[in-house]
């Protein structure tokens, strides 16, 4: 009886909302607590996997009843060693042999830099109601454009880097803009278009690397090294990889936060994201909104490509984007599609990446565990009711356009 009454009280979703828009709303309606809990649950399950796959644990469980403490202590040491190594690798590791190696926190920041840019790209499109799955392709195009002017031209310091940054943003913007244009003019679904564009991007860069952009001194599909003037300056000298791209990334966070919360354009995006039909009725140009938001989103992803090629990699190859474009989606989800939330989520993922290597080397736990934890985070965030039921959190709903 009482259950029926409760159900009746729950506000039903707007009738004309499409499936996708509803999902975006659902995912965004959660709060930071759910993000944190999703990470915690994912880490717990990751810990169980670490313990189960550890040969010491399975050996000790073979005589569980003869000596139960042996199993428990094996489980404890297996998990604490793995996560301890993860934590130390991502922050500060007093056991590392060199002082540069002890400061893993700067590796975390280095890995986080492209994730901040690409996470922002996904976040921004999300707020306008678009799933930009194409960050991967936009990063590749950004890196390709940035690389072409980075090793193809020789310009004075500062100027060259600026040209590289602009070229990277342009490359990403073109790739994102195609999807925005098709969505606005033909209604083609941006998820399908951006996924397809990812494939085109990877084939395109491979073609270019075998022909126009190939390093003539190498037999591999790899570009020449970037000009020294085209690289981001290292922030802490040659001992650390952290580079000025990080500062640009923080500026981008501030910029996107301002755009979304303080500008007219940002208000339009949020209105379109909340309800495109209402936005159209209110006199907003929805199609223009789709195109511009995908241009800006693509440009941000392009900057992630710049951070890769002008920051850490220094030459172009077909693996330049790694898994950044896909991690970006998780980062944006975890960051609740808010600029600063995305920033901290990117830091967390940077820490996973930096610490994951340390965990693989120092605790003999496969770095694949990190991928499992990341995937579990996506699972729990994409299914907020699951997390709510585990921790018994009341559903909260945000109404209308909110920050």
């Amino acid at each position, binding site marked *: 009886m009482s259950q029926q009454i409760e159900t009746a009280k729950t506000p039903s979703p707007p009738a004309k909302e499409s499936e996708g828009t509803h999902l975006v709303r659902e995912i965004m309606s959660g709060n930071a607590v759910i993000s944190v809990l999703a990470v915690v649950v994912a880490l717990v399950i990751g810990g169980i996997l670490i313990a189960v796959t550890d040969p010491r644990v399975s050996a000790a469980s*073979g*005589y569980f009843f003869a000596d139960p403490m042996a199993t428990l202590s094996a489980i404890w040491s297996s998990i604490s060693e793995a996560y301890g190594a993860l934590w130390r690798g991502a922050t500060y590791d007093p056991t590392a042999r060199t002082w540069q190696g002890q400061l893993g926190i700067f590796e975390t920041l280095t890995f986080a830099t492209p994730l901040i840019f690409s996470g922002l790209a996904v976040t921004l499109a999300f707020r306008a109601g678009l799933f930009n799955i194409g960050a991967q392709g936009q990063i590749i195009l950004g890196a390709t454009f940035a690389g072409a002017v980075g090793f193809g031209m020789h310009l004075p310091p500062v100027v060259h880097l600026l040209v590289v940054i602009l070229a990277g943003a342009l490359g990403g913007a073109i790739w994102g803009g195609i999807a925005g244009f098709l969505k606005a003019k033909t209604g083609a679904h941006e998820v399908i278009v951006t996924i397809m564009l990812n494939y085109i991007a990877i084939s395109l860069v491979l073609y270019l690397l075998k022909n126009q952009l190939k390093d003539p001194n190498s037999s591999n599909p790899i570009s020449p090294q970037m000009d020294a003037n085209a690289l981001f300056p290292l922030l802490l000298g040659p001992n650390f990889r952290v580079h000025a791209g990080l500062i640009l990334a923080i500026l981008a966070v501030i910029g996107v936060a301002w755009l979304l919360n303080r500008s007219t354009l940002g208000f339009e995006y949020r209105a379109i994201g909340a309800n495109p039909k209402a936005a159209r009725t209110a006199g907003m140009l929805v199609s223009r909104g789709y195109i511009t938001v995908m241009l800006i989103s693509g440009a941000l992803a392009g900057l992630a490509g710049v951070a890769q090629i002008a920051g850490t*990699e220094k030459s172009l190859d077909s693996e330049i984007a790694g898994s950044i474009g896909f991690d970006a989606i998780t980062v944006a989800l975890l960051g609740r599609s808010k600029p600063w939330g995305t920033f901290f989520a990117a830091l967390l993922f940077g820490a996973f990446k930096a610490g994951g290597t340390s965990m693989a080397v120092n605790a003999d736990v496969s770095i694949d565990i990190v991928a499992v934890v990341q995937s579990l985070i996506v699972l729990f965030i994409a299914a907020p009711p699951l997390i709510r039921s585990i921790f018994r959190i009341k559903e909260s709903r945000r109404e209308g356009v909110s920050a």
Partner: protein
Amino acid sequence: MKNNITGTFKRGATVGTVTLGAMALLLTGCGQAPAPSGGNASGNAGAADYLGCIVSDSGGFDDQSFNQSSYEGLKKTVADTGIKMKEAQSTTKADFEPNLNQMTNAGCNLTFTVGFLLADATKKVATADPKSHFAIIDDSSIDLPNVKPIVYDTAQAAFLAGYTAASASKTGKVGTFGGINIPTVTVFMDGFAEGVAYYNEKNSKDVKVSGWDVASQQGVFTNTFDIIQEGTKATNNLINDGADVIMPVAGPLGKGAGDAILAANKNGKDVKLVWVDSDGYLTAPTYKSILLTSVIKTMGDAVESIVKDDLAGKYSATPYIGTLANGGVALAPFHDLDSAVSADTKTQLETIKKGIIDGSIKVESKSSPKK
């Protein structure tokens, strides 16, 4: 109320999971606890503190090629000497440097980096950390006191394979093709072609080589190490060209070549296969019946001997060059096709091997590692 109901379900599920887990433990957990022992009785005291490390290229340690054989070599060294080891697999180029940094952080005494793709990262990390020792496989571009290049003069063993192939050919034509036109591939093809030429010179024959021209350094390449079918295609072309002994130098594409030969032999041809890198009789037993011989690079042995040298304080950055003399490269036994090689040829091969080792027979490939 709704929450309570789901909560009950949730708890029910948890109880179920715990019960299942306990059942599993009941089934497995009845063994005896081992008596506390004084650790593994292995090696000397120095070995226990010694850390040997290895970083793969993007092929991973299960690539059935040089990553795997180097990795297995280090594993064997661990078993033999009681040293400790750490490993890191790279999935992309971006992983090379972080992985190597982790190795020096972990305090590795000696780190093996597998493949010339890691040359840049190895050079950078080795320069920053001059006290750690490194060894890089298949690259000799780094000139640092703490980086030992491990390279192979494969042409020497391929020379013997070429000689054998020429002697076994009935059509008067042998063939070879490569994955990509890079020195580590063409060094096989050079040696093979020169071995054939040497056979012609000694026996006044005129066996032709299809697929590789030493003078112009051009030949048949599949331009891939991944697409097996390209190996089948290249092999079919060589067979149609009249070749009846074929040496593919393209990693996994050797399987494609083997398949093509098995199919051709079913249709009345009599074509034989020469495997490379490992003894194909052991690593690719499907092709036992057509396998004439293999050109072997013994990476595991090199890894083991370098670790042992370093352990004994005898590390040097002088390149390790695998040759017939030190057993770094070798011609595999003929196994099932032993009868296809005449007793005469076998004696001659022994003489040639001695000749190459003492320098009276020169095998010169542009791609051979420089001493």
